């Protein structure tokens, strides 16, 4: 008994120390700073009660806008990424020549860093699209990054392009876990292709969606680098996502306390949304 406790703590302590130093401590400091007027540079951080929270909720239009924008954007991205991932996964698990090559190709964008992806697509949207549009006289292909709607669409395309490969991989793993016996039994009973998909594959895929939706949600909420390199929040701050708003508040307006308050609000909202999602999807998972 005594020995097993020792083993337990022997394994746990390093993780606990790392977790406290890297996550808990900064979080506690952050929460503290959200109640001060610290500017992020100077040594004076005077506590000012709830005033940061009051300011961001009552007197910060851009924060409210970025919040809504991030929520809507994440919702759209989660739907598109997971639908596309499912489609791709079903496609490449069909038995055909080169299916492995396609898996690699679809997964590839995920290996490129967000900054690079942003720059590559900035070039595509502003030069390639523009060039094609001018050449073929298709006006809607031009100037994608200069209106709020198309800039958002562009950001969405980049995110979906980048993330769906990874989610596809998760789906593939889950599809391969489905016992052939189930599918065979169903076809012997006369189930059509669609019925087999709808009544067997899809329910068996729920664990993949639990993870997939969780990861996409979390990634979309945290999105910064693609946002920065593709649109820089522009045009006129219309594609400024929450992380960028927080960063700008802290480092370009020198309002570290306010930025921390935004961070705390943001943390709570993200935690609530993702935990709720996990809870509901866990209940739907089918055990064999």
């Amino acid at each position, binding site marked *: 008994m005594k*020995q*097993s406790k*020792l*083993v337990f703590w*022997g*394994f746990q*302590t*390093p993780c606990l*120390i*790392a977790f406290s130093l890297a996550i808990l401590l900064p979080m506690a400091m952050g929460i503290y700073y959200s109640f001060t007027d610290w*500017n*992020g*540079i*100077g*040594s004076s951080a005077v506590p000012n009660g709830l005033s940061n929270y009051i300011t961001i909720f009552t*007197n910060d239009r*851009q924060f409210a806008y970025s919040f809504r924008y991030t929520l809507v954007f994440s919702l759209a991205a989660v739907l598109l990424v997971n639908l596309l991932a499912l489609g791709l996964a079903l496609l490449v698990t069909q038995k055909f020549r080169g299916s492995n090559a396609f898996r690699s190709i679809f997964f590839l964008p995920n290996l490129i860093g967000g900054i690079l992806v942003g720059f590559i697509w900035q070039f595509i949207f*502003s030069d390639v699209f523009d060039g094609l549009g001018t050449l073929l006289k298709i006006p809607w292909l*031009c*100037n*994608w*990054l*200069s*209106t709020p709607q198309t800039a958002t669409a562009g950001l969405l395309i980049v995110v979906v392009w980048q993330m769906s490969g990874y989610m596809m991989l998760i789906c593939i793993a889950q599809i391969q876990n489905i016992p052939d016996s189930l599918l065979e039994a169903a076809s012997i009973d006369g189930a059509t292709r669609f019925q087999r998909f709808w009544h067997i594959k899809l329910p068996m895929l729920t664990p993949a969606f639990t993870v997939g939706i969780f990861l996409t949600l979390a990634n979309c909420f945290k999105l910064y680098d693609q946002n920065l390199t593709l649109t*820089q929040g*522009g*045009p*006129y*701050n219309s594609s400024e996502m929450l992380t960028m708003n927080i*960063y*700008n*508040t802290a*480092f*370009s*307006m*020198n*309002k570290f306390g306010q930025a921390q308050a935004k961070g705390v609000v943001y943390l709570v909202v993200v935690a609530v949304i993702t935990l709720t999602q996990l809870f509901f999807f866990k209940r739907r998972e089918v055990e064999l």
Partner: protein
Amino acid sequence: MRYQKQICMLLALIFAVAFTFGCSPAPAADTAAATASSGTETAPVATAAATADESKNSGDYVYQDLQDAELTFYQYSVENAEIIQSAIDQYETIHPNVKINLESVGGGTDWRTSLKAKISSGDEPTLIALEGVSDFDTFSDMLEDVSDQPWVSHVYDSVLKECTIDSKVVALPACIVCYGLLYNKGIFTACGIDGETLRTYDAIDAAFATVQEAIDSGKLKDQYPDLETVVSLPAAEKWVLVLHGANAALGLEFSNGFDAYNAKTLDFTTAGAFKDYIDLMVKYSADADNPSALNAVDYDSAMGGSFCIQKTAAIQMGQWVQPIVAGVDETMLDQIGVLPIPLKGVDEDNVCYGVGEYFVVNRHSTDAQKAAAKDFLNWFYLSNEGKSVQSNDLGFNVPMDCYGDYPVDNVVSQACNAYAQSGNITPLVFGGYPDGWQDSFGAGIQSYIAGEKDWDTVIQEAKDSWAQLR
């Protein structure tokens, strides 16, 4: 079973030990560095000559021995990074025991934000380029008193005032920044226009119209096949719109950066004239029919991708573009002239002119680092080699009285000096803008250009955010 437990324990122990050591490279490195530097503090004098070597003096620079030091020089003019690096290399041959790491962040990136992030991460540079008085306030914790430095006596009095806080000189005025509307003399001459005579809003408007007409009629097709439109307006760059653009208007409202910095509210009496200026630029840009597209035009595409290859004939830029133009086409430099930034009915024949960059030494660095940084600045501004780099390579207009033999080699600076001689200059006040104002007002102007908001709303919001950010 018993065996297994022991193995488990052993494993746990190994992990724990590995983790503690794996996790703590920093203190180990620190002690190593500490021993290294404490070792060198006594050593260097023995290796170098004990007395100052007079043969290493140059110009107004007096050589002195330094302790070993390694320091970071953080600056934001990326276009000059290579030139500064070569100057550093030259300096390091005189002082082989000093190592200066140049870090250049700028161009499209917000260098100030990166600097703050760097400082909050505990990695403070020793020598830092700053832009203006509000930076002095933001980074006030870090400013070293440099009143005793030999270059101080050479700086023009009017300029020295802007470098002084509480009667202590805290910054070296690195150069004069000047900008106006650059134009391509060749193109204008081909249309029969003498740029030197364009000194009012209406004259410039008419000249632009003439050039646009010549382009549309195909008259310039043979001589300038790429020419598409008169003006490049990189509206995606908020620094072009607000930092420089709005300065032309606000420089008439405030007399210097400190004035702007102390202003709790903004009157913006020149807002109307500034609107006319923006309208003028939009009207003769490539996207006059669909102005919202301008918001995607960035510095690179407006400068290297348009003006330098003679796709456009005018752009609001300044002396810093010389290396870029030279990099694309050396012969193009002779073609550059400077028009005023015309503020209709207020002041139509001014260019913007003032100290645009300061070098400060970080008080928090070690003594050896600070001494090396100060000595480097002395060498960089007072030695003959340094002066030559400033005037010829960087094309910096240095506001010091010892540059008689080293006149600035920069077409834009020379043209702007002519404006300065006749008193037609607007001071630089953008250093006194509130932090973050560039971003909010920039977004405002962009939405005006895109037709999302009307000008009065934009100005009202700019005033509100000025007051709010103060």
